[in-house]
Protein backbone atom coordinates (compact mmCIF):
# COMPACT_ATOMS: atom_id res chain seq x y z
CA UNK A 1 0.00 0.00 0.00
CA UNK A 2 1.15 3.51 -0.68
CA UNK A 3 3.07 5.35 2.02
CA UNK A 4 1.66 8.30 3.89
CA UNK A 5 2.27 11.69 2.37
CA UNK A 6 2.10 15.07 4.01
CA UNK A 7 0.00 17.74 2.32
CA UNK A 8 -2.24 15.35 0.43
CA UNK A 9 -5.61 13.79 1.26
CA UNK A 10 -5.63 10.08 1.91
CA UNK A 11 -8.40 7.51 2.39
CA UNK A 12 -7.80 3.93 3.60
CA UNK A 13 -8.38 1.24 0.99
CA UNK A 14 -11.44 -0.94 1.67
CA UNK A 15 -10.86 -4.67 2.14
CA UNK A 16 -13.37 -7.26 1.01
CA UNK A 17 -15.32 -8.55 3.97
CA UNK A 18 -18.53 -9.87 2.49
CA UNK A 19 -21.81 -8.23 1.51
CA UNK A 20 -25.43 -7.89 2.54
CA UNK A 21 -27.95 -9.98 0.63
CA UNK A 22 -29.39 -8.15 -2.41
CA UNK A 23 -32.61 -7.03 -0.68
CA UNK A 24 -30.92 -5.67 2.44
CA UNK A 25 -28.22 -4.04 0.26
CA UNK A 26 -30.83 -2.31 -1.87
CA UNK A 27 -32.67 -0.75 1.07
CA UNK A 28 -29.38 0.21 2.71
CA UNK A 29 -27.95 1.91 -0.38
CA UNK A 30 -24.78 -0.20 -0.38
CA UNK A 31 -23.92 -3.88 -0.54
CA UNK A 32 -21.12 -3.37 2.00
CA UNK A 33 -21.81 -3.54 5.77
CA UNK A 34 -18.51 -1.66 6.21
CA UNK A 35 -19.86 1.37 4.32
CA UNK A 36 -23.32 1.36 5.93
CA UNK A 37 -23.25 4.65 7.85
CA UNK A 38 -26.75 6.07 8.35
CA UNK A 39 -27.53 9.59 9.65
CA UNK A 40 -29.21 9.73 13.06
CA UNK A 41 -32.01 11.90 11.68
CA UNK A 42 -32.70 9.13 9.18
CA UNK A 43 -33.65 6.96 12.09
CA UNK A 44 -35.39 9.42 14.41
CA UNK A 45 -37.44 11.85 12.37
CA UNK A 46 -39.46 9.29 10.49
CA UNK A 47 -43.23 9.32 10.79
CA UNK A 48 -44.72 5.99 11.62
CA UNK A 49 -46.47 4.24 8.81
CA UNK A 50 -44.68 1.95 6.49
CA UNK A 51 -43.93 2.90 2.94
CA UNK A 52 -45.27 0.12 0.78
CA UNK A 53 -41.82 -0.23 -0.75
CA UNK A 54 -40.21 -2.58 1.73
CA UNK A 55 -43.02 -5.05 1.88
CA UNK A 56 -43.39 -7.33 -1.10
CA UNK A 57 -45.74 -5.78 -3.59
CA UNK A 58 -48.94 -7.74 -4.22
CA UNK A 59 -48.63 -6.92 -7.92
CA UNK A 60 -46.71 -9.64 -9.73
CA UNK A 61 -45.10 -7.33 -12.25
CA UNK A 62 -44.01 -4.93 -9.53
CA UNK A 63 -42.39 -7.64 -7.44
CA UNK A 64 -40.61 -8.90 -10.56
CA UNK A 65 -39.35 -5.34 -11.18
CA UNK A 66 -38.23 -5.12 -7.56
CA UNK A 67 -36.09 -8.22 -8.05
CA UNK A 68 -34.49 -6.68 -11.15
CA UNK A 69 -33.75 -3.50 -9.21
CA UNK A 70 -32.16 -5.39 -6.33
CA UNK A 71 -29.94 -7.58 -8.49
CA UNK A 72 -28.98 -4.68 -10.78
CA UNK A 73 -28.06 -2.51 -7.82
CA UNK A 74 -25.90 -5.31 -6.44
CA UNK A 75 -24.06 -5.37 -9.77
CA UNK A 76 -23.72 -1.54 -9.80
CA UNK A 77 -22.08 -1.41 -6.37
CA UNK A 78 -19.85 -4.41 -7.09
CA UNK A 79 -18.64 -2.78 -10.30
CA UNK A 80 -17.55 0.36 -8.50
CA UNK A 81 -15.67 -1.81 -6.00
CA UNK A 82 -13.99 -3.74 -8.81
CA UNK A 83 -13.04 -0.48 -10.56
CA UNK A 84 -10.61 0.14 -7.71
CA UNK A 85 -10.03 -3.56 -6.75
CA UNK A 86 -9.78 -5.36 -10.10
CA UNK A 87 -7.72 -8.12 -8.51
CA UNK A 88 -10.35 -9.08 -5.90
CA UNK A 89 -11.31 -12.67 -6.67
CA UNK A 90 -14.37 -12.79 -4.37
CA UNK A 91 -15.85 -9.63 -5.89
CA UNK A 92 -15.32 -10.93 -9.41
CA UNK A 93 -16.99 -14.24 -8.59
CA UNK A 94 -19.93 -12.36 -7.07
CA UNK A 95 -20.18 -10.15 -10.17
CA UNK A 96 -20.28 -13.17 -12.45
CA UNK A 97 -23.13 -14.59 -10.38
CA UNK A 98 -25.29 -11.46 -10.30
CA UNK A 99 -24.75 -10.54 -13.94
CA UNK A 100 -25.98 -13.98 -14.93
CA UNK A 101 -29.04 -13.59 -12.72
CA UNK A 102 -29.69 -10.09 -14.09
CA UNK A 103 -29.49 -11.24 -17.68
CA UNK A 104 -32.07 -13.96 -17.22
CA UNK A 105 -34.39 -11.71 -15.15
CA UNK A 106 -34.31 -9.02 -17.87
CA UNK A 107 -35.15 -11.51 -20.61
CA UNK A 108 -37.94 -13.13 -18.60
CA UNK A 109 -39.37 -9.69 -17.79
CA UNK A 110 -39.30 -8.69 -21.46
CA UNK A 111 -41.07 -11.86 -22.48
CA UNK A 112 -43.73 -11.55 -19.80
CA UNK A 113 -44.22 -7.75 -19.75
CA UNK A 114 -42.12 -5.35 -21.85
CA UNK A 115 -38.43 -4.81 -22.68
CA UNK A 116 -36.32 -2.59 -20.40
CA UNK A 117 -33.42 -2.29 -22.86
CA UNK A 118 -32.89 -2.47 -26.60
CA UNK A 119 -31.10 -5.80 -26.15
CA UNK A 120 -34.18 -7.18 -24.40
CA UNK A 121 -36.21 -6.09 -27.43
CA UNK A 122 -33.77 -8.04 -29.61
CA UNK A 123 -34.43 -11.12 -27.46
CA UNK A 124 -38.18 -10.76 -28.00
CA UNK A 125 -37.77 -10.46 -31.77
CA UNK A 126 -35.48 -13.49 -31.84
CA UNK A 127 -38.13 -15.43 -30.01
CA UNK A 128 -41.01 -14.11 -32.19
CA UNK A 129 -39.58 -13.08 -35.58
CA UNK A 130 -43.07 -12.42 -37.00
CA UNK A 131 -44.10 -10.02 -34.23
CA UNK A 132 -45.73 -6.75 -35.39
CA UNK A 133 -45.34 -5.11 -32.01
CA UNK A 134 -42.95 -2.21 -31.53
CA UNK A 135 -42.81 -3.09 -27.86
CA UNK A 136 -40.38 -0.33 -26.78
CA UNK A 137 -43.25 2.00 -25.88
CA UNK A 138 -45.07 -0.54 -23.73
CA UNK A 139 -45.16 -0.36 -19.95
CA UNK A 140 -45.33 2.62 -17.58
CA UNK A 141 -42.78 5.43 -17.77
CA UNK A 142 -40.20 5.06 -15.00
CA UNK A 143 -41.00 8.39 -13.33
CA UNK A 144 -44.74 7.69 -13.08
CA UNK A 145 -44.41 5.89 -9.75
CA UNK A 146 -45.27 2.51 -11.21
CA UNK A 147 -41.69 1.44 -11.47
CA UNK A 148 -41.35 -0.40 -8.17
Amino acid at each position, binding site marked *: *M*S*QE*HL*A*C*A*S*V*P*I*QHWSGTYDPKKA*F*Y*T*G*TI*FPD*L*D*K*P*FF*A*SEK*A*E*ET*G*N*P*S*LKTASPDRRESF*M*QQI*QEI*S*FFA*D*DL*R*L*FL*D*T*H*PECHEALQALKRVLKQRKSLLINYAEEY*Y*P*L*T*VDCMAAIFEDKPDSDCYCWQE*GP*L*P*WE*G*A*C*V
Partner: protein
Amino acid sequence: MWVYEKRLQYPVKITKTCPKTAQLIISQYGGPDGELSASMRYLSQRYTMPVRQVGGLLTDIGTEELAHMEIICAMVYQLTKNLSAEQAKEAGFDAYYIDHTAGIWPQAASAMPFTAKEFQSKGDAITDLTEDLAAEQKARTVYDNLLRMITDPEIRDPLKFLRAREIVHFQRFGEALEKTKEKLDQRNLYYFNPEFDKGMMKRV
Protein backbone atom coordinates in the same frame (compact mmCIF):
# COMPACT_ATOMS: atom_id res chain seq x y z
CA MET B 1 -22.40 5.92 -25.83
CA TRP B 2 -25.17 5.45 -23.31
CA VAL B 3 -27.99 2.91 -23.30
CA TYR B 4 -31.26 3.71 -21.55
CA GLU B 5 -32.78 1.17 -19.21
CA LYS B 6 -36.47 1.79 -18.69
CA ARG B 7 -36.56 1.82 -14.88
CA LEU B 8 -35.32 3.91 -11.97
CA GLN B 9 -32.27 2.71 -10.05
CA TYR B 10 -34.37 3.10 -6.88
CA PRO B 11 -38.18 3.28 -6.86
CA VAL B 12 -40.09 6.51 -6.25
CA LYS B 13 -43.73 6.20 -5.31
CA ILE B 14 -45.06 9.42 -3.79
CA THR B 15 -48.80 9.67 -3.31
CA LYS B 16 -49.18 13.23 -1.92
CA THR B 17 -48.82 16.53 -3.72
CA CYS B 18 -46.39 18.75 -1.80
CA PRO B 19 -44.87 21.67 -3.74
CA LYS B 20 -43.01 22.90 -0.65
CA THR B 21 -41.02 19.67 -0.46
CA ALA B 22 -40.50 19.67 -4.25
CA GLN B 23 -38.90 23.07 -3.93
CA LEU B 24 -36.38 21.73 -1.41
CA ILE B 25 -35.59 18.51 -3.23
CA ILE B 26 -35.11 20.21 -6.62
CA SER B 27 -31.78 21.44 -5.27
CA GLN B 28 -30.38 17.95 -5.80
CA TYR B 29 -31.36 18.28 -9.49
CA GLY B 30 -29.99 21.69 -10.44
CA GLY B 31 -28.37 22.99 -7.25
CA PRO B 32 -24.68 23.54 -6.49
CA ASP B 33 -24.21 20.05 -5.04
CA GLY B 34 -26.87 18.35 -7.12
CA GLU B 35 -26.75 15.16 -9.16
CA LEU B 36 -26.56 16.97 -12.50
CA SER B 37 -23.54 18.90 -11.35
CA ALA B 38 -21.97 15.68 -10.02
CA SER B 39 -22.51 13.83 -13.26
CA MET B 40 -21.15 16.63 -15.46
CA ARG B 41 -18.14 17.04 -13.14
CA TYR B 42 -17.07 13.39 -13.35
CA LEU B 43 -17.91 12.91 -17.02
CA SER B 44 -15.89 16.04 -17.88
CA GLN B 45 -12.86 15.17 -15.77
CA ARG B 46 -12.45 11.60 -17.03
CA TYR B 47 -10.91 12.28 -20.46
CA THR B 48 -7.54 13.45 -19.25
CA MET B 49 -7.13 11.18 -16.22
CA PRO B 50 -3.63 9.66 -16.37
CA VAL B 51 -4.61 6.38 -14.67
CA ARG B 52 -6.91 4.30 -16.87
CA GLN B 53 -8.81 2.73 -13.98
CA VAL B 54 -9.62 6.17 -12.62
CA GLY B 55 -11.06 7.26 -15.98
CA GLY B 56 -13.20 4.12 -15.86
CA LEU B 57 -14.37 4.83 -12.31
CA LEU B 58 -15.32 8.41 -13.22
CA THR B 59 -17.37 7.06 -16.14
CA ASP B 60 -19.21 4.58 -13.92
CA ILE B 61 -19.91 7.04 -11.11
CA GLY B 62 -20.82 9.81 -13.60
CA THR B 63 -23.29 7.39 -15.17
CA GLU B 64 -24.78 6.43 -11.79
CA GLU B 65 -25.23 10.15 -11.05
CA LEU B 66 -27.38 10.43 -14.19
CA ALA B 67 -29.60 7.72 -12.73
CA HIS B 68 -29.73 9.69 -9.46
CA MET B 69 -30.75 12.80 -11.36
CA GLU B 70 -33.63 10.80 -12.80
CA ILE B 71 -34.68 9.69 -9.29
CA ILE B 72 -34.68 13.31 -8.04
CA CYS B 73 -36.64 14.50 -11.10
CA ALA B 74 -39.18 11.70 -10.58
CA MET B 75 -39.61 12.89 -6.97
CA VAL B 76 -40.12 16.53 -7.99
CA TYR B 77 -42.52 15.42 -10.73
CA GLN B 78 -44.61 13.24 -8.42
CA LEU B 79 -44.71 15.93 -5.72
CA THR B 80 -46.13 18.48 -8.19
CA LYS B 81 -48.08 16.52 -10.78
CA ASN B 82 -51.56 17.27 -9.44
CA LEU B 83 -50.68 20.78 -8.37
CA SER B 84 -53.32 23.52 -8.34
CA ALA B 85 -52.45 27.21 -8.70
CA GLU B 86 -53.79 27.76 -5.14
CA GLN B 87 -51.51 25.07 -3.71
CA ALA B 88 -48.55 26.63 -5.51
CA LYS B 89 -49.38 30.00 -4.00
CA GLU B 90 -49.85 28.71 -0.46
CA ALA B 91 -46.64 26.68 -0.52
CA GLY B 92 -44.50 29.52 -1.83
CA PHE B 93 -44.09 27.60 -5.08
CA ASP B 94 -45.74 30.42 -7.05
CA ALA B 95 -42.54 31.98 -8.42
CA TYR B 96 -41.47 28.60 -9.85
CA TYR B 97 -45.00 28.09 -11.20
CA ILE B 98 -44.88 31.41 -13.06
CA ASP B 99 -41.64 30.48 -14.82
CA HIS B 100 -42.15 26.74 -15.40
CA THR B 101 -45.77 25.82 -14.51
CA ALA B 102 -45.25 22.22 -13.26
CA GLY B 103 -42.42 21.51 -15.70
CA ILE B 104 -39.14 20.12 -14.34
CA TRP B 105 -36.22 22.58 -14.64
CA PRO B 106 -32.76 22.36 -13.07
CA GLN B 107 -32.45 24.94 -10.31
CA ALA B 108 -31.32 25.13 -6.69
CA ALA B 109 -33.72 25.33 -3.72
CA SER B 110 -32.80 29.01 -3.68
CA ALA B 111 -34.05 29.32 -7.33
CA MET B 112 -30.53 29.83 -8.69
CA PRO B 113 -30.37 28.13 -12.12
CA PHE B 114 -28.09 25.16 -12.79
CA THR B 115 -24.64 26.33 -13.76
CA ALA B 116 -21.31 24.74 -14.69
CA LYS B 117 -19.70 27.32 -12.40
CA GLU B 118 -20.42 24.96 -9.52
CA PHE B 119 -17.88 22.35 -10.58
CA GLN B 120 -14.37 22.14 -11.94
CA SER B 121 -12.38 20.13 -14.40
CA LYS B 122 -8.92 21.39 -13.61
CA GLY B 123 -6.70 19.12 -15.68
CA ASP B 124 -4.75 17.89 -12.64
CA ALA B 125 -5.65 14.47 -11.24
CA ILE B 126 -4.92 15.26 -7.57
CA THR B 127 -6.87 18.51 -7.76
CA ASP B 128 -9.84 16.93 -9.52
CA LEU B 129 -10.04 13.88 -7.24
CA THR B 130 -9.78 16.12 -4.17
CA GLU B 131 -12.70 18.14 -5.57
CA ASP B 132 -14.64 14.91 -6.12
CA LEU B 133 -14.13 13.87 -2.49
CA ALA B 134 -15.45 17.26 -1.37
CA ALA B 135 -18.36 17.07 -3.82
CA GLU B 136 -19.56 13.77 -2.34
CA GLN B 137 -19.39 15.25 1.16
CA LYS B 138 -21.33 18.36 0.12
CA ALA B 139 -24.04 16.25 -1.47
CA ARG B 140 -24.22 14.09 1.67
CA THR B 141 -24.73 17.19 3.81
CA VAL B 142 -27.60 18.30 1.55
CA TYR B 143 -29.24 14.88 2.00
CA ASP B 144 -28.67 15.12 5.78
CA ASN B 145 -30.40 18.51 5.74
CA LEU B 146 -33.29 17.19 3.66
CA LEU B 147 -33.71 14.20 5.99
CA ARG B 148 -33.83 16.51 9.01
CA MET B 149 -36.64 18.56 7.42
CA ILE B 150 -38.76 15.92 5.71
CA THR B 151 -40.78 13.45 7.76
CA ASP B 152 -42.83 11.55 5.16
CA PRO B 153 -41.38 8.02 4.74
CA GLU B 154 -42.40 7.86 1.06
CA ILE B 155 -40.09 10.81 0.39
CA ARG B 156 -37.36 9.93 2.89
CA ASP B 157 -36.81 6.44 1.57
CA PRO B 158 -35.21 7.39 -1.79
CA LEU B 159 -33.34 10.26 -0.10
CA LYS B 160 -31.73 7.79 2.33
CA PHE B 161 -30.68 5.60 -0.59
CA LEU B 162 -29.11 8.57 -2.40
CA ARG B 163 -27.32 9.70 0.76
CA ALA B 164 -25.80 6.25 1.22
CA ARG B 165 -24.44 6.37 -2.34
CA GLU B 166 -22.48 9.56 -1.55
CA ILE B 167 -20.54 7.70 1.14
CA VAL B 168 -19.71 4.81 -1.19
CA HIS B 169 -18.59 7.19 -3.95
CA PHE B 170 -16.38 9.06 -1.48
CA GLN B 171 -14.65 5.80 -0.61
CA ARG B 172 -14.07 4.96 -4.29
CA PHE B 173 -12.68 8.42 -5.12
CA GLY B 174 -10.36 8.07 -2.12
CA GLU B 175 -9.10 4.77 -3.50
CA ALA B 176 -8.70 6.37 -6.94
CA LEU B 177 -6.57 9.09 -5.36
CA GLU B 178 -4.37 6.44 -3.68
CA LYS B 179 -3.91 4.69 -7.03
CA THR B 180 -2.91 7.95 -8.67
CA LYS B 181 -0.43 8.80 -5.89
CA GLU B 182 1.32 5.45 -6.35
CA LYS B 183 2.40 6.59 -9.79
CA LEU B 184 3.85 9.93 -8.72
CA ASP B 185 7.22 10.99 -7.37
CA GLN B 186 7.04 9.60 -3.82
CA ARG B 187 9.22 12.35 -2.33
CA ASN B 188 7.16 15.15 -3.87
CA LEU B 189 3.65 14.40 -5.17
CA TYR B 190 3.54 17.88 -6.66
CA TYR B 191 6.76 17.66 -8.67
CA PHE B 192 4.78 17.62 -11.94
CA ASN B 193 1.16 17.72 -13.13
CA PRO B 194 0.12 14.06 -13.55
CA GLU B 195 -2.28 14.93 -16.37
CA PHE B 196 -0.24 17.47 -18.28
CA ASP B 197 3.19 15.87 -17.78
CA LYS B 198 2.01 12.29 -18.35
CA GLY B 199 5.44 11.17 -19.53
CA MET B 200 6.77 11.61 -16.01
CA MET B 201 4.28 9.16 -14.45
CA LYS B 202 5.64 5.86 -13.16
CA ARG B 203 4.67 2.91 -15.28
CA VAL B 204 3.45 0.71 -12.45
